[in-house]
């Protein structure tokens, strides 16, 4: 298992100028480590829509990498997004799923039977070009170099552990953050 903040740090290290769409507990982790907040789209609301937002962003910015930081508990509520992404096949999209072994993103309450669901198989069947699964920090850190070069859409399951005390959501309001990213991109940033 990988401490979730460490997973976020590894992604941040490899990010370069990628746009990042993050949601739910993955957003709480990402907010602690991101050094390019002007390129971060936060979903503190409509949290199941991160893959769809990422798809729109990847189609709008085809020359740029788009990383979606999703969670198991949010992806299960919009599984159709896998097929929607598989149909459009954006080469610049990397869809991470923080698979939370501690269930802290659902306040410690496990989603009954969620371990029976194989998201990576679903993504593969939906038309993602490649899937990865990482369970230890070293493998993730080294493996991300390949992930970032692979033509997408790529699907990456990261088995994470969370601190008992969850990091807070960003203070920045959603509308404010989205406007900042849009202005940055329109200005060519």
């Amino acid at each position: 298992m990988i401490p979730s903040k460490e997973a976020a740090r590894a992604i941040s290290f490899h990010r370069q100028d990628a746009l990042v769409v993050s949601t739910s507990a993955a957003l709480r982790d990402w907010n602690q480590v991101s050094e390019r907040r002007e390129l971060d789209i936060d979903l503190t609301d409509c949290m199941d829509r991160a893959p769809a937002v990422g798809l729109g962003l990847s189609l709008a910015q085809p020359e740029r990498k788009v990383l979606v930081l999703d969670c198991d508990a949010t992806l299960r509520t919009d599984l159709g997004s896998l097929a929607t992404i598989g149909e459009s096949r954006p080469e610049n999209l990397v869809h991470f799923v923080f698979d939370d072994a501690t269930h802290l993103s659902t306040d410690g309450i496990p989603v009954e039977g969620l371990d029976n669901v194989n998201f990576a198989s679903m993504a593969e069947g939906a038309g993602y070009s490649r899937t990865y699964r990482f369970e230890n920090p070293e493998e993730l850190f080294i493996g991300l170099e390949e992930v970032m070069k692979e033509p997408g859409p790529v699907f990456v399951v990261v088995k994470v552990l969370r601190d008992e005390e969850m990091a807070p959501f960003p203070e920045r309001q959603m509308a404010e953050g989205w406007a900042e990213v849009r202005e940055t991109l329109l200005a060519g940033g």
Partner: protein
Amino acid sequence: MTTYDSVLHPPAIIAELKKNNITHVVWLPDSETNFMYQLLNDEDSLDLVPVCREGETMAIAAGLWVGGKKPVVLIQNTGIFESGDSIRGLGLDINQPLVMLIGYRGWTRRGPTPDSAARFIEPILHTWGINCYLIETDDDADRISIACEEAERTQKPVGVLVGTEFGV
């Protein structure tokens, strides 16, 4: 007696989308909107983005808009009900100037309709504070431009209800 023998032809809608520099049409392929598919597909200046469920259209449009593009969504009125939370959170709350082309299933100007999808759509949009325009014939198509201008000016979603039989 007034007669309504005019119909709405897809080229009138496509022309309006092009006039307003629309870049993407995010849609759920279905029987109500398939009349536009071939023309949209043939139009180089417009990219089609198909979805599995209507609620995704608002989110994909939001991503396109943040990325500097100008999308519209094309779904049936039933899909608006399915999209409720996304319209709230990713349309109204983030100030997305989105024009929603909405197939008006059940629309009739001949009295009460038995279709609840038609009865509820306008009250629902109005409850959200979303203004909407009705288009029925080619003569009405320029209301798409009015909707685009209003969406930009208010930085909010605007609906265009497509309530007609389509010509080919």
